[in-house]
């Protein structure tokens, strides 16, 4: 047995060496976020060259703000996707949460913070229901959350209409506690003459936290495992159901957080907004290297995916193009990312 430690003796070690070379190469390309980083650099340079306003620090700050509003949600959506599930209700859930906070505190004339907490409970409950149904029934999360998506969409419109006779929630800026809540969720500060929105800080913080959880904590190990192979994870004692429900609730939590930002940024919420954003989150995660099939990806990748989204979104405006081109670009990016991911996965999974 000792002789196997001396590498270049017999044929088996030689096979090992081949594996080593392959994995060294693969390691360079197979980092989940590698493709996204390359893409982000190319897109940054592209707009830097063709769109002069894009070069300003202030417009970059705006780009980062747009990025952060998507990136906040893309982070838990990426974790969920690594855990092997989808949440198509994530986009409207943001609006639901904001509407809930706004309508509750306005109708009952409470402190704005009361509405904020009620909305948190609602968002966590939505996440829990999504997760619980998926785990208990084994129905694909695509379908479960599609149902939730339509239900929430309908509720948003119908309840807002019933309660306010409007399509938007009333302005809550006169309520008690609005000022402090706005400070927490929607303030901004100045760095070197550039206005920076606080969501950028939250976004970066959450990406760091999520990355730490994924790579350095036991829960992170479990997230990869339940997404990579739930039966294997179950067989070694990982609480698969709890991990998955927890991930759905993390999406709910961030939907609440993002919803609160939107509410305290604009004081009022359009009941129809948020539809379609679920795809943006998923695209950011996929462009960032998350596999649709689960078990692979990173929070940093999703952040870079969101950044690509934000840069294209703003870059097209700064370049003075017809904004209709935007969706074309996003679609092309998604397709390219999927092709790259599939290639990487084949390499990573292929047995020697």
């Amino acid at each position: 047995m000792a002789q196997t430690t001396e590498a270049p003796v017999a044929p088996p070690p030689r096979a090992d060496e081949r594996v080593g070379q392959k994995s060294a190469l693969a390691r360079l390309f197979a980092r989940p976020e590698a493709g996204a980083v390359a893409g982000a650099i190319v897109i940054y340079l592209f707009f830097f060259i063709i769109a002069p306003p894009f070069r300003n620090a202030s417009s970059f700050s705006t780009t980062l703000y747009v990025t952060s509003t998507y990136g906040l949600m893309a982070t838990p959506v990426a974790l969920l996707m690594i855990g092997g599930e989808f949440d198509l209700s994530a986009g409207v859930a943001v609006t639901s949460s904001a509407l809930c906070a706004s309508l509750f505190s306005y109708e009952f004339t409470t402190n704005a913070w009361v509405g904020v907490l009620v909305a948190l409970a609602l968002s966590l409950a939505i996440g829990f229901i999504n997760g619980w149904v998926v785990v208990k029934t084994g129905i694909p999360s695509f379908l479960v959350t599609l149902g939730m998506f339509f239900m929430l969409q309908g509720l948003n419109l119908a309840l807002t209409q019933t309660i306010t006779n409007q399509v938007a929630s009333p302005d809550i800026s006169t309520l008690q506690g609005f000022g402090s809540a706005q400070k927490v969720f929607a303030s901004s500060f100045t760095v070197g003459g550039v206005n920076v929105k606080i969501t950028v800080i939250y976004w970066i913080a959450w990406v760091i936290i999520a990355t730490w959880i994924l790579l350095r904590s036991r829960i992170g190990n479990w997230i990869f495992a339940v997404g990579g192979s739930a039966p294997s994870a179950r067989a070694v004692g990982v609480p698969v159901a709890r991990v998955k429900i927890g991930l759905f609730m993390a999406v709910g939590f961030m939907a609440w957080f993002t919803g609160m930002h939107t509410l305290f940024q604009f004081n009022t919420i359009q009941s129809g907004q948020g539809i379609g954003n679920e795809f943006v989150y998923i695209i950011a995660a996929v462009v960032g290297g998350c596999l649709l099939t689960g078990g692979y990806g990173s929070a940093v990748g999703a952040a870079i995916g969101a950044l690509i989204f934000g840069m294209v979104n703003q870059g097209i405006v700064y370049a003075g193009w017809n904004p209709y081109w935007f969706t074309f670009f996003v679609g092309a990016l998604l397709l390219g990312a999927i092709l790259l991911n599939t290639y990487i996965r084949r390499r990573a999974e292929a047995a020697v």
Partner: protein
Amino acid sequence: MSTPQQTPAPPARNGQGGPPTVRLTGVGKRYGAVIALHDINLEVSAGEVTCVLGDNGAGKSTLIKIIAGLHQPSSGTYEVDGTPVTFDSPREALERGIATVYQDLAVVPLMPVWRNFFLGSEVRKGPRLDIAAMKKMCKDEMLAMGIDLRDVDQPIGTLSGGERQCVAISRAVHFGAKVLILDEPTAALGVKQSGVVLKYIIQARERGLAVIFITHNPHHAYPVGDRFLLLNRGKSIGYYEKSQVTRDELTGLMAGGAELEQLSHELESAGGAAAEAAHELEADVTELGISAEPGGDTGTASATTTQEGSSRP
């Protein structure tokens, strides 16, 4: 051909005095109207290997699931160290030291080797994973099994089938399994890789583990086994100590026995091409019995060289 003197070194058999580590008595399992298992007896003690042989559908997996705690038996008793037990989950079985290495459920292919190794039993410093320690332990355990991994960070899916089995086995051993249930560990492997796995079964036995080795290959079972339980259609068709049976008898019972007769009978009764297939099958099995012999010997050789090195006939 058969080497009855090949019984394992006595010192390893430390379970001789007390009750067997695992004992099933008259165990049966029904799924509704389907009788999956009927009246099965099995025992295994520390430092012993009990082989469960049978073809597909013989009830091997049901038996594993009962021992592993996934299912409860419908009848009969299940004892661990002499006390009757009822496991409600694999976790409970695991807590009693009964670990199962499943054929294909053992690992998450995209995760690094070390993460797979410690999955579900991660080593932590406070809330943080102790990654350095886990990587080192994983590398050392694999080295102890004779597998020198260059990089424990590589996805386990890039390892060969035999190596993956060994990761799963060494993982169970590392986490203090007293009883190791191996579900067809050699089924998908070539002769050489099978030999490697058989070597680790012997090693596990030498370390004083009780091993339940499920296989359909008597050539893999015979060199490492102390007891052999033959299953067919949910029933025991034989339960032997090693001294009571030769490999050829075992092979005969497995391949040439009632099972095959029944199968060729069924095929023949279907007539036409099926009857031809029945004859071919019979010929195949006979041929297999001969041509598989060297494979079995390779297993024996690599298995025994580690301890005796001189049992090749």
